[in-house]
């Protein structure tokens, strides 16, 4: 993984490239202020003094002048960030810049300050001259320096509305596009870290088998058997995590099979984990015409889908304890030409809007309530499950009911139920 410092350096290099292109084509100075670790950090086009008005260069050549300009720009960038509105921003010495906040999802990521101008309009000119007088005093200028500064202020170009309208039309969009890329990259980086965490956790489960070797002579046959089961289960759970990434799936091959076999397999993989959490996995699978239910399905895929659903039900269940029994229930029955399965648990809930808008089945989406007391997963599982069911011409829907009252649903127990409907027979392909 790139370190945060390396990420920022790469982003700054790309921002500077855009700023250079803008400065070279518009011949205007430009800077972007970002908030990094609570500080306002300025990034500027490559040093080209000719872009700046003589007025600015003169102030910056005076003792303490540059520091005052830097502090003033940071202050103004902060003002624009807080207001979130683009418009004119006047500097401490009477020159206007155009200021544009770059916002993504209602959050201002940066503030662009560009151009140096005066405006012929009387009220603007009055403010310019007042600022000029303040600067003369603040910078401790003598009469000759004050006169020079006033002469240079008068030379600053007065931009027409058309000139600025042209600039306004391009730069903010480019900046927004760039920050959108940074935002996506950040999400991807964090996502990879989470998947790594999931995978390494399962590998840890396998490495723990080292205990079997060190304790081999003392172990009973039963303990050895359970230990080996532990290794196999961890490897199978690891395969589910990797397959959820979607890139390692085999082709769909449909055969008529006993659905209970797949559910028992999922139970076997996650039973030890459930047991440690004080949760029992219970099945209530009703026969179809007096026999076990047989459904035409692609075994590898549906197995992974069931693994995901049963593991989620365990992961997001509240812990069991003496006198507080916890279950993951799997109920199955025939509903006409469909086989219906309900997988339910008692624990962390799903918000009504996440269900109504289908968000929980979106790739990389993580339920808001799982951010509370429970760490989220990789955000791949339910997306994968939905894809698998679609291939089977089946459906999946989620239901959630809050089981106790409280100001916030976070931490309150919910009954969560996923209902799957699968046709017994696949349509001809």
């Amino acid at each position, binding site marked *: *993984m790139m*370190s*945060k*410092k390396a990420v920022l350096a790469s982003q700054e290099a790309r921002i500077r490239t855009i700023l250079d292109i803008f400065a070279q084509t518009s011949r205007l100075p430009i800077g972007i202020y970002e908030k990094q670790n609570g500080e306002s950090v300025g990034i500027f086009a490559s040093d080209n003094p000719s872009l700046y008005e003589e007025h600015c260069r003169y102030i910056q050549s005076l003792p303490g002048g540059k520091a005052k300009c830097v502090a003033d720009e940071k202050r103004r960038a902060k003002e624009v960030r807080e207001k979130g509105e683009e418009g004119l921003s006047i500097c401490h010495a009477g020159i206007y810049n155009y200021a544009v906040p770059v916002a993504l999802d209602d959050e201002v990521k940066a503030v662009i300050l560009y151009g140096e101008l005066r405006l012929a309009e009387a009220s603007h000119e009055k403010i310019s001259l007042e600022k000029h007088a303040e600067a003369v005093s603040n910078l401790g200028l003598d009469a000759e320096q004050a006169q020079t500064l006033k002469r240079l202020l008068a030379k600053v170009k007065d931009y027409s509305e058309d000139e600025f309208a042209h600039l306004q039309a391009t730069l903010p969009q480019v900046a927004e596009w760039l920050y959108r890329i940074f935002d996506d990259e950040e999400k991807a980086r*964090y996502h990879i*870290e*989470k998947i*790594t*965490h999931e995978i*390494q*956790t*399962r*590998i*840890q*489960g*396998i*490495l*723990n*088998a*080292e*205990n079997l070797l*060190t*304790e081999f002579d003392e172990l009973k046959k039963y303990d050895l058997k359970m230990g080996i089961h*532990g290794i196999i289960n*961890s490897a199978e*759970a690891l395969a589910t995590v990797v397959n959820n990434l979607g890139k390692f799936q085999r082709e769909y091959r449909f055969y008529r099979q006993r659905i209970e076999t797949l559910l028992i397999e999922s139970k076997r993989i996650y039973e030890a*984990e459930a047991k*440690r*959490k004080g949760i029992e996995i219970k099945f209530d699978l009703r026969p179809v015409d007096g026999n076990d239910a047989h459904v035409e399905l692609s075994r590898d895929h549906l197995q992974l889908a069931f693994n995901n659903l049963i593991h989620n039900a365990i992961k997001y269940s509240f812990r069991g304890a003496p006198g507080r029994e916890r279950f993951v229930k799997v109920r199955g029955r025939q509903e006409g030409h469909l086989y219906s399965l309900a997988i339910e648990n008692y624990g962390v809930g799903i918000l009504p809007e996440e269900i109504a808008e289908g968000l929980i089945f979106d790739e990389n989406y*993580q339920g808001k309530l*799982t*951010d*509370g*007391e*429970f*760490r*989220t997963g990789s955000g791949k599982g339910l997306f994968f499950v939905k894809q698998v069911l679609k291939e089977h011409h089946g459906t999946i829907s989620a239901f959630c009911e809050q089981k106790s009252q409280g100001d916030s649903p976070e931490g309150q127990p919910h009954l969560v139920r996923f209902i799957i409907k699968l046709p017994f027979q696949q349509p001809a392909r």
Partner: protein
Amino acid sequence: MSTPKKKIVWIEDDTDIINDVVRPLERGGYLIERFYTVKEALDNIEKLRACDLILLDLIIPPGTDERFGHYPGMHLLRTFRNDFHLQQPVIVLSVVADAEVFQDLKDLNAEIENKPILPSKLKRLVEQVLGV
């Protein structure tokens, strides 16, 4: 008179899956107390104060959060050191591989070990840190 058993607090949300990683420590007589979330650890601060060593994961509930950033474990460690002045040795077990995160952990006087880790290696590391 027998030596009192060393107490270790393990802050990790995946203990249901990786519980056996501390088995050699438990067999070696160490007492392990498990906490699963930032909140649970902070609610039990006196138990942490009384322990001999803390094993800490960086990615623990509540996950990414405005207050804690991506690594709630880091926030927790900072709180232990700065607000509660806990001086115990801390071993961070994590998959995070960011040089700046490592530096922050070093600054907070933590030992860092990548996950996954062999249970025997963890025991050796704990004993090395405790000077046993």
